């Protein structure tokens, strides 16, 4: 309990620092906010007036507090480029990203853990070799390249799946797998090595000496002990998925948070860029927090009784 409370406080602190960092990064990243809204022929006075209007001439720490104050009171503002309501963008794109992200996250573990167990149980056979080759491949291939390859093969050559768009299940398949692949590859490795380590550990030998069947030893005890390191990496996987979503959503034309953010940055639509950066950072931080809590609960050494 104490550990969980501590981690939660720590997470809030990280969230605060991250929000400051994101805010400064976006404000200081150069580029002219007025370019997003004003026509190219706008005069210097027009631009200055526009900056004044947006409060961009205030000291930056003051801007931060003004911004966060509005954010926390529920006023998310509007886009500079098309005046759309940021809250509406959040719900629409957030939903799409949630579908894609949760699918990819589920795939990472639903595919990665069983494959890792399989490789461990069949260690040093061709099955193990095949799984590990897949895993090494999955880690080595850059996801943008994989995305393009998948589109070329499955959409152009074989015509099996739509090349882009949202949000039918058929359209989900390619982006979800591309997003998940590296996570799957890493989870396979992690699961396999944790299983192998536990299979040869002293405590498992004690269970065997107690006459438990090998199936029981593996499926209950080895697996359970192996979950601890796997869970501890769930937070990292979330961060990875969020990061890769920027690329994958853009390539597959999946209108999610990542795509919004990339477009906003390209158009210097700073309220949108700022807000969605914060959202993605918050997801990553919250994901790590959740994984950490899960880790504490799974590990008796950390679970205070």
């Amino acid at each position, binding site marked *: 309990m104490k550990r969980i409370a501590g981690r939660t406080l720590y997470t809030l602190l990280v969230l605060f620092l991250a929000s400051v960092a994101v805010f400064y990064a976006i404000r200081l990243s150069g580029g002219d906010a007025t370019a997003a809204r004003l026509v190219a022929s706008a005069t210097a006075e027009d631009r200055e007036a526009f900056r004044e209007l947006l409060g961009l001439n205030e000291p930056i720490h003051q801007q931060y507090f003004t911004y966060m104050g509005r954010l926390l009171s529920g006023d998310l503002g509007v886009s500079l480029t098309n005046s759309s309501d940021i809250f509406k963008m959040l719900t629409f794109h957030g939903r799409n990203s949630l579908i894609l992200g949760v699918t990819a996250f589920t795939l990472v573990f639903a595919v990665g853990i069983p494959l890792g167990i399989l490789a461990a149980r069949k260690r040093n056979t061709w099955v193990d070799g095949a799984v590990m080759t897949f895993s090494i491949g999955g880690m080595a291939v850059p996801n943008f390249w994989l995305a393009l390859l998948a589109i070329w093969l499955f959409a152009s050559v074989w015509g099996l799946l739509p090349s882009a768009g949202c949000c039918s299940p058929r359209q989900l398949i390619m982006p979800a797998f591309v997003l998940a692949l590296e996570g799957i590859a890493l989870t396979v490795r992690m699961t396999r090595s944790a299983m192998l380590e536990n299979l040869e550990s002293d405590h498992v030998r004690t269970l065997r000496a107690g006459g*438990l069947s090998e199936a029981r030893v593996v499926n209950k005890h080895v697996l359970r002990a192996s979950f601890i390191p796997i869970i501890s990496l769930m937070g990292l996987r979330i961060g990875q998925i969020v990061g890769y979503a920027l690329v994958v959503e853009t390539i597959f034309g999946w209108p999610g948070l990542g795509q919004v953010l990339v477009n906003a940055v390209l158009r210097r639509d700073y309220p949108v860029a700022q807000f969605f950066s914060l959202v993605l950072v918050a997801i990553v931080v919250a994901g790590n927090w959740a994984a950490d809590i899960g880790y504490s609960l799974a590990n008796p050494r950390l679970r205070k009784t």
Partner: protein
Amino acid sequence: MAQTVPSKIGSTQQARSPAETLLSIRNLRTAVSQGEDRFDIVRDLSLDIFPNEIVCLVGESGCGKSITALSVMRLLPTPPVRAIGGEIQFKENDLLTLSDKEMRKVRAEDIAMVFQDPLTSLDPVFSVGSVMTEVIKAHRDLDTNTARTMALEALQEVGLPDPEKRLDSYPHQMSGGMRQRVLIATALVLDPDLLIADEPTTALDVTVQAQILEMLLEEQRQRHMSILLITHDLAVVAGVADRVAVMYAGEIVEQAPVDELFEDPKHPYTQGLLHALPHISVKREKLIPIPGVVPPPQMMPPGCRFAPRCPYALSRCWQERPELEINAGRPLRCFNPQPFVA
């Protein structure tokens, strides 16, 4: 620490007939494979254990004691280590030929084992009670409550403080001594005929060592079980053993009832071990350790495996391998035994 353990030296050992044997290891050979090569870790090892006795298997680190025990339990790290020859007769069966399923029945029910390191030998993610009930239920058709009661009784018997509470404890919440008691309770819960205890006290501090040994002795007396106690500590041997088998480099080199062995050790290796022991060598100025170390399985000398460290080695010893032969009433593996000078 030998004085804190009730002395068994002097207990009489009547002759036994082979029919009575509980465990009979015959010419056991256990080897490790490394690529194309295979090296013997245990060679030509024969040892009998009778009902209701404590046999100690002694020898320096790396001489193959644990591998011998794991061969009996069929818990060797296979691959690369495998029992490739001999027989391990337990009651009517040769354990080496049992199916995996039959062997599982033997474990815990007939032969139980306690391992060297209590700190790592307990499952870290399950409670003591849940593992113990699982072991019980793997052998007996019992409901969880009955099994839990059995587990509780076993924990009480091994003298674990607060046993009721400990059923729900996890290993990290207990000290090394408590963990070893839990391991012993788990091993004894199905009332086995033979307990193999592999250096059960080596990892513990001296006072706890004595308590655990005392408790093991008490359990042995009450249950009339046999114990194969593996140790490299001759003080422990003097305190608890009925019979002693001295092991060197994968072979048994001498075997005798404990009092005879301490009074009149015949093998140069046994003599060396005794010279290195404080209690025996009080008369001398300082202890004499045996020079050198046990050779690894890959580098065994061709003749007597002890020749490189033996003060009495003859040229014959370097070429020919001594067999384990009865010498003055006890099995001995030596061409040139010399009287013991304390």
